[in-house]
């Protein structure tokens, strides 16, 4: 059974009871909440996810709740709780789903130190993965989402999860948080894609969450071999430009774009070394999504 097959009130019942379980691949989370309207958003964005019983071991158990007291009526807020602690300040009450997504990402980034966590999108086709590391604003999320809607399997949008032993990429399939213009761009690019509600005025502007496709969610347990590393750079109206970069440079860019490279030390060094030596590395400047997707497809096919 899938989360999308539940009614909103059934989702709500689970959220206010033992919790709603989410299977993301390498991570499992359980969420409890009594925040109105969150159930509806979850049902839209997580419709393709298997319904997971809230019993057993979960990597993250989170609770979203309205703080008690006067704040209930005056500029209401919601807090994010992890095991009885509040790791960050409450959000305005209307931004419930962004808070849940941000909070779960925060917990994952802090807890998954057995793997190397790169700040990167990962997609795969025919068992060969494309790693798209980038800084915010580079168009990484949009490009990852575009590929995932043109026949690539999504492994992750935010965290490139690298298994230390063999540098395989592990799935951590989460909704893609699209920001500002990207939301409209993606609506036009993939009219059939499911987008959650838009949340204006978050810290990052307007945010809407793109639901992962069921093909990606169906393969949560299947890792992928890295084949291509592309550092995307979105430049409005720019010509498509693909420029090979030396592996040494790719190494530096990857290692400085990681959540826990320093923490893992030599193991991370080895994993990044394995990654760059098994991949072709490029910088990709693009202005048009369709063109970029076609180019990446061709590149992956020719590098086989």
């Amino acid at each position, binding site marked *: 059974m899938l989360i999308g097959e539940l009614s909103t009130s059934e989702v709500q019942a689970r959220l206010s009871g033992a919790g709603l379980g989410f299977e993301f691949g390498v991570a499992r989370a359980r969420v409890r909440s009594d925040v109105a309207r969150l159930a509806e958003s979850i049902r839209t964005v997580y419709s393709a996810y298997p319904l997971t019983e809230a019993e057993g*071991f979960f990597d993250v158990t989170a609770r979203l709740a309205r703080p008690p007291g006067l704040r209930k009526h005056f500029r209401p807020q919601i807090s994010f709780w992890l095991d*009885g602690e509040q790791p960050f300040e409450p959000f305005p009450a209307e931004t419930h789903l962004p808070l849940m997504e941000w909070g779960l990402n925060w917990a994952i980034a802090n*807890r*998954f130190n*057995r793997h190397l966590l790169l700040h990167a999108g990962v997609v795969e086709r025919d068992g060969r993965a494309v790693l798209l590391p980038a800084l915010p604003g580079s168009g990484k999320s949009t490009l990852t989402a575009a590929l995932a809607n043109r026949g690539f399997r999504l492994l992750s949008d935010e965290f490139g999860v690298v298994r230390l032993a063999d540098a395989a990429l592990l799935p951590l399939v989460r909704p893609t948080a699209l920001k500002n213009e990207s939301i409209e761009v993606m609506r036009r690019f993939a009219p059939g894609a499911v987008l959650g509600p838009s949340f204006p005025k978050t810290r990052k502007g307007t945010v809407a969450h793109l639901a992962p496709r069921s093909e990606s969610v169906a393969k949560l347990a299947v890792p992928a071999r890295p084949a291509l590393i592309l550092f995307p750079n979105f430049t409005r109206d720019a010509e498509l430009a693909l420029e090979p970069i030396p592996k040494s440079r790719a190494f530096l860019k990857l290692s400085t774009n990681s959540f826990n490279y*320093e923490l893992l030390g030599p193991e991370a060094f080895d994993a990044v070394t394995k990654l760059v030596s098994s991949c072709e590395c490029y910088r990709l400047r693009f202005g048009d999504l369709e063109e970029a997707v076609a180019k990446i497809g061709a590149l992956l096919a020719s590098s086989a």
Partner: protein
Amino acid sequence: MTAGRLGRLPRADPVGALLALLRAPETARTFDEADWDAVVRVARPARLLAALRLRLERHGVFADVPERVRMHLDAERTLVRFRKQMVLWELECIARALSEFPAPLVLLKGAAYVVQGFGFAEGRLPSDVDLMVPRASLDAAERALLGAGWQTEALDPYDERYYREWSHELPPMRYPEHPLELDLHHTILPLTGRIQPKADALFADAVPIAGTRFHVLCPADQVVHAATQLFQDSDCAGRLRDLVDFDALIGELGATERFRERLVERARLHGAERPLAYALRYAGRFLGTPDALGLDSRVRGNDDARVRGNDGAERSRAMLPPIPRVARFMMDRLVPRALLPTHPDRRTPLAVRTARFALFLRSHWLRMPPALLARHAITKGWRALRAEAPSEVE
């Protein structure tokens, strides 16, 4: 997963289950994934995952832990190793900055455990580096460190004065970009407190660490320090990990008769017999701290006049004085509630909040004489009010 056993001990009482695991790691064999879920959710905010992992490993039951749970325990060990590395790096930088410094540099707590190569350092997360120098050299040490690039945050005049005149340490320093703070101490308890450890003796008997610029306190002083940190200079709130440190330290420093004598002697010298008695009492109660030293039974024996009566001369030479009945009665009610972790999904019970408040008052009472305490309370209270006001109106 095995048949649903709702209400089994670990899930119904995750705090009790965590204590059972710390005491007797073999208990892990009976845990299923849901049990682990409950325990990890208590151990993580208590910062005890690494200690738990270490104990499971030492008792050969780590392999019995489900893979998903092991991932979290491994991740925590990775973090510990990184922080230990950062401690060593910070020490190297400090040694360089103070290479010309004539006075002894004595490491306390986490950094001391690391340089002594204590096995249990693998099970605790150091958050800063604590360095002690003689009070006469304190200003010079501070100047040398500031000159070498360490920085302090600007404090308001009251806090500045509090640290400089009444505290046992200076405001924390940090070298830009370094992850760990450096606390520069000149003794181990506040100058204004009821207990005044003999700083001269702390330095005189400090032990050099071969191949380094550093010393550590003599073993017995380390145990006394761990005990006073928790039971003299803190409100105990959620500080089970400090008791776990104490337990591990006792385990590490061995169980010789001579050490036992020495510990009692040093506690007496520093006037810290009571906090040591408390630490032994509650470490024994919650963690089953090994009784091999005979200290625990001695404390209990001291509580009970009859046992004391039929004892030999050797025993009367080195004894901790008994905890007075009233104090014992109060602490037995307050300490378990305040110190142990609370259930992550429940509102902190009133009894726990009351106990924490009572021990908070106690720690302040022990830290400063009444007049200074009154002044401190007014200053801090007034500041809290001022800080709160704007956010309410905002």
